[in-house]
């Protein structure tokens, strides 16, 4: 290897700016490649975490249940599970045995409904009200009150110990220990039979078996749970749990005295598959966008290489004149730029890995994903080297060897209507998206695999708009020499400067428009999905939170004043086709989840109190018949208004006023709705002494995974947009820096000839600001249009109103514009400073 090639790596140090730009280009390029891999894997893991979070922690691992065993058989099941659990990597299981619910007669002679049971560690997870010795029965408050049970009492059956503690009833929401046993342990305070389901605890398993082996026969329920020390954080961890569970359950069954004695469940196996599918969906969806971004990044590397060729032109010509061919010169470029590109690639991968919590939906990765991302980063780095070499080969061949005809052919490429090609591709992508929108399939937990080509639609539109903008600006700049704007010297100077560096200008415009458009699409569609899910959840629950309460509150007692001011009572009646709500027009609009104008809804509801001849005035919802109808237990209703959707009702039903219904006692269920989170609502209810059931909050009412999958996809699009924005800003700075000498000389001479500094500043602001402004305008317009078109198509559940729609993007566009102006101001300051500090003599001398 000859000296100029051997010394090439060191030669890179002669131009810190080129080194910096090469480092940044490789950094962004490898970040995009590596982040695509990491993000999609993290999305799968986030899906696993999301689903694990929706399950009781003790239901994530396999579970064992059965209701038809004897107490002795139940104990055998627990022993078998305890024997097998450590062999399959599970901690010691929590076994439980429950008797049937019956009216057991206590010493008081009363016989309230209850069940007896035993669960490993149960006494550590209860609130003791009286007593507390662990060698006797523990009775819930409801049973103690209904049966007049006191410490020392017992049930008049052999083997039953005496009561040693009275504990507070278990009520919703229960903690992690009890949530898997909710059906057996939580008291239903609204049930007519009082303490039905209340659990009287035996002190240990042996005493329970001894007491119930004879009297309960085979009607004992056994339950075994395997609490994990840590819930699965990745799909791989979840798959491992599911696989170990699948191996353990048959081993346990093989130890049991008879076949089919228990029912086993491995509930996390399906979520694991769903998580993997979610990861694949996100990967498939971001792939086209990633490829386009990588191509843009490689184009950036090509631009850096062209700049390098121009800076090293004299040396390249010298080496070529001495006999070196374009391929050798390509190798020269690779040898010089490889080190900064490698440094950038390593940094890009490191940032992609370390910044995972900030841009990905989960900070956890599956085993091997980091290695795969490193391999992708290596491939991207190799591609960058290849582009560097190839561009240098092409550039030097064109500069030194090509004939005129071939040069014309090369130049002719810029006249090809690329925007027409991308426009056709965008139309085809839209057609694909229209034909196969993102939809939930019946019985499937996730939308069907989105069509990758279809998901490329937004970016293809943005790309087309960017190319059209570039074409128009290129034509405009070519014709700019005809402009005579010397009355506005700043504008004339700005236009001339742009025209003199038309290549850089349109390059910045292209990347800038792509960046703003991609950011707008990413934020727009992700926000649209969020809003749609939020609204659908709100309409599904009715308010931020709700809980069922006793009918007596509606019919007799009413709400305590504190609650009455902060909540609203809603009666729910379901007929065959419709959901009928009885609402309080005075408070409903302020409390319920309203997608729109609360005052307008309040005004509409006020009409429900107006008398109607022979019928109750009703608000018709969605597709409910627009005519007088007879509703069960309500009577005839006459629609006086119509809304397309209504909280809890959804798309079909009627709303009447609570004051107008004949008898509130005829309503099936009364709920209390609150604008507060469910925890606070329940605290308020408990404080007011109101029993409640079926409490639910808006945030956990619906399975959000389908929406999250689409959202995670477009979160990555946002990240790509951010990367492109950094590229655009760097390109703007670089474009000024590479012309620093010419700008400084021209500006310094012009100011010495009388150009006012203010005009010079204005010319730079106009030059750079027009590029930034056009990028923001074109990108934002394209992005908003794409968001408006694509959002409904990407709604996984369009049958739940409202369908996703483009959100208000004024804030985003304003922020983008402000950031662009800040970048323009910074670059302008740099350009003007180079003029004010220039030494004209040195500049002229060169």
């Amino acid at each position: 290897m000859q000296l100029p090639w051997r010394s090439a790596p060191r030669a890179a140090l002669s131009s810190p700016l080129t080194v910096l730009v090469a480092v940044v280009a490789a950094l962004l390029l490898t970040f995009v490649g590596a982040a695509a891999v990491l993000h999609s894997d993290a999305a799968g893991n986030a899906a696993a975490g999301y689903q694990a979070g929706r399950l009781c922690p003790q239901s994530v691992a396999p579970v064992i249940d059965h209701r038809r065993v004897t107490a002795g058989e139940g104990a055998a099941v627990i022993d078998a599970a305890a024997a097998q659990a450590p062999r399959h990597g599970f901690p010691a299981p929590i076994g439980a045995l429950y008797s049937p619910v019956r009216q057991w007669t206590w010493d008081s002679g009363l016989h309230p409904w209850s069940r007896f049971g035993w669960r490993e560690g149960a006494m550590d997870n209860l609130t003791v009200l009286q007593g507390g010795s662990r060698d006797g029965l523990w009775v819930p408050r409801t049973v103690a009150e209904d049966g007049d049970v006191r410490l020392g009492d017992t049930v008049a059956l052999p083997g039953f110990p005496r009561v040693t503690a009275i504990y507070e009833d278990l009520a919703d929401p229960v903690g992690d220990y009890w949530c898997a046993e909710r059906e057996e342990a939580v008291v239903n305070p609204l049930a007519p039979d009082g303490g039905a389901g209340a659990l009287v605890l035996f002190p240990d398993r042996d005493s329970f078996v001894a007491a119930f082996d004879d009297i309960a026969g085979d009607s004992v329920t056994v339950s075994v749970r395997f609490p994990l020390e840590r819930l699965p954080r990745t799909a791989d961890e979840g798959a491992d749990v599911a696989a170990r569970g699948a191996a353990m359950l048959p081993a346990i069954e093989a130890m049991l005295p008879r076949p089919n004695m228990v029912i086993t469940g491995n509930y996390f196996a399906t979520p694991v598959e769903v998580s993997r599918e979610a990861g694949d969906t996100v990967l498939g969806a971001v792939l086209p966008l990633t490829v386009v971004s990588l191509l843009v990044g490689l184009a950036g590397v090509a631009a850096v290489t062209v700049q390098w060729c121009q800076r090293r032109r004299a040396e390249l010509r010298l080496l070529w004149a001495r006999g070196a061919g374009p391929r050798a010169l390509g190798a020269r470029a690779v040898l010089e730029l490889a080190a900064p590109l490698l440094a950038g690639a390593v940094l890009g991968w490191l940032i992609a890995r370390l910044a995972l919590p900030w841009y990905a939906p989960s900070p956890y990765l599956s085993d091997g994903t980091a290695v795969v991302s490193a391999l992708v980063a290596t491939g991207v780095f190799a591609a960058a080297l290849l582009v560097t070499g190839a561009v240098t080969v092409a550039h030097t061949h064109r500069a030194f060897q090509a004939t005129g005809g071939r040069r014309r052919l090369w130049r002719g490429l810029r006249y090809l209507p690329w925007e027409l090609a991308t426009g056709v591709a965008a139309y085809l992508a839209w057609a694909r998206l229209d034909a196969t929108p993102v939809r939930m399939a019946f019985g499937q937990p996730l939308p069907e695999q989105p069509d990758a080509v279809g998901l490329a639609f937004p970016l293809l539109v943005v790309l087309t708009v960017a190319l059209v903008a570039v074409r128009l600006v290129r034509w405009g700049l070519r014709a700019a020499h005809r402009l005579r704007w010397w009355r506005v010297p700043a504008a004339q100077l700005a236009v001339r400067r742009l025209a003199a560096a038309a290549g850089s200008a349109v390059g910045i415009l292209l990347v800038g428009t792509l960046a703003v458009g991609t950011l707008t699409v990413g934020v727009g569609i992700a926000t649209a999905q969020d809003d749609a899910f939020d609204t659908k959840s709100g309409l599904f629950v009715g308010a931020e939170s709700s809980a069922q309460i006793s009918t007596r509150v509606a019919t007799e007692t009413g709400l305590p004043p504190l609650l009455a001011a902060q909540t609203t009572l809603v009666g729910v009646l379901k007929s065959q086709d419709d959901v009928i709500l009885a609402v309080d027009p005075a408070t409903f609009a302020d409390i319920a989840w309203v997608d729109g104008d609360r005052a307008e809804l309040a005004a509409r509801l006020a009409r429900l109190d107006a008398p109607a001849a022979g019928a109750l005035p009703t608000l018709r919802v969605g597709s409910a018949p627009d005519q007088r109808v007879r509703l069960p237990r309500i009577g005839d209703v006459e629609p006086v208004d119509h809304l397309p959707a209504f909280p809890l009702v959804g798309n079909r039903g009627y709303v009447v006023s609570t004051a107008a219904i004949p008898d509130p006692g005829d309503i099936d269920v009364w709920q209390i709705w609150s604008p507060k989170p469910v925890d606070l609502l329940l605290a308020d209810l408990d404080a007011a002494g109101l029993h409640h059931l079926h409490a639910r909050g808006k945030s956990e009412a619906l399975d959000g995974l389908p929406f999250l999958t689409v959202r995670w996809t477009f979160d990555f699009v946002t990240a790509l947009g951010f990367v492109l924005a950094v590229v655009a800003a760097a390109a703007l700075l670089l474009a000024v820096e590479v012309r620093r000498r010419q700008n400084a000389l021209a500006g310094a001479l012009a100011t010495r000839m009388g150009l006012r500094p203010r005009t010079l500043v204005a010319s730079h602001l106009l030059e750079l600001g027009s590029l930034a402004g056009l990028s923001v305008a074109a990108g934002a317009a394209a992005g908003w249009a794409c968001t408006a078109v694509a959002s409904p198509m990407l709604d996984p559940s369009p049958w739940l109103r409202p369908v996703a729609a483009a959100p208000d993007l004024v804030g985003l566009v304003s922020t983008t514009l402000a950031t662009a102006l800040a970048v323009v101001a910074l670059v302008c300051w740099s350009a003007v400073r180079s003029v004010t500090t220039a030494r004209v003599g040195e500049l002229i001398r060169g």
Partner: protein
Amino acid sequence: MAELLTDDPLVTEGPAPLFEVDRVRVEYPTPAGPVPALEEVTVTVPADGLTVLAGPSGSGKSTLLRVLGLIDRPTAGRVRVSGRDVGGLGHRQRRLLRRDRIALVVQYPPENLIGHLTVGQNLRAAAESARVPADPDAVLGWLGIPDTADWRVEALSGGQQQRLAFGCALARRPAVVLADEPTSQLDAASAALVLDVVDRLVADGVPVVVASHDDEVIARAHRVVRLREGRIEEAA
């Protein structure tokens, strides 16, 4: 310096022509259409002495020099180098010819040198490019700038850089040195020193072809080919 010079047959053949240019035409594409830079140029350059291509700006002397240096291809006509027709040669063969036979010195001194290498490294790189052994100290002594091998190129004056450019040409042991306006960027004293180097090259048997309108250069020429508006005006 005789030991540094090649025993290439092109040099030792004496009066045999080094370049034979026969009715060469060169056109440059412009937005207004092709513009002829050379028209029907026929000239023979012998393999000895200093040949100067003279003429005013735009006369075509630099274009003719680039045709001789196998940098540009003529639009029409024939060029022979040591009797070999180079018109049909591909890029690779032309590069090999340039590598082995021709050294080129251009007008602007820094463009003849590699800026990030030292003076000595530049001489070594030049020799390596032609696959010949390098002796930077001997060349620097011959150029009259000894003990500068470790200097950065920037540390040399413009005249010293141009002399070093001829030193690099010499280090490549070429069959001919082509120089395009080698003194146009220098003051008179520096130009004189550069021309002294050219004289010594010629004296040592290296044929030199210079494109120049500098009277001082023309005065030292063994033969002068005058061009005007792309045509040979006089060959003497």
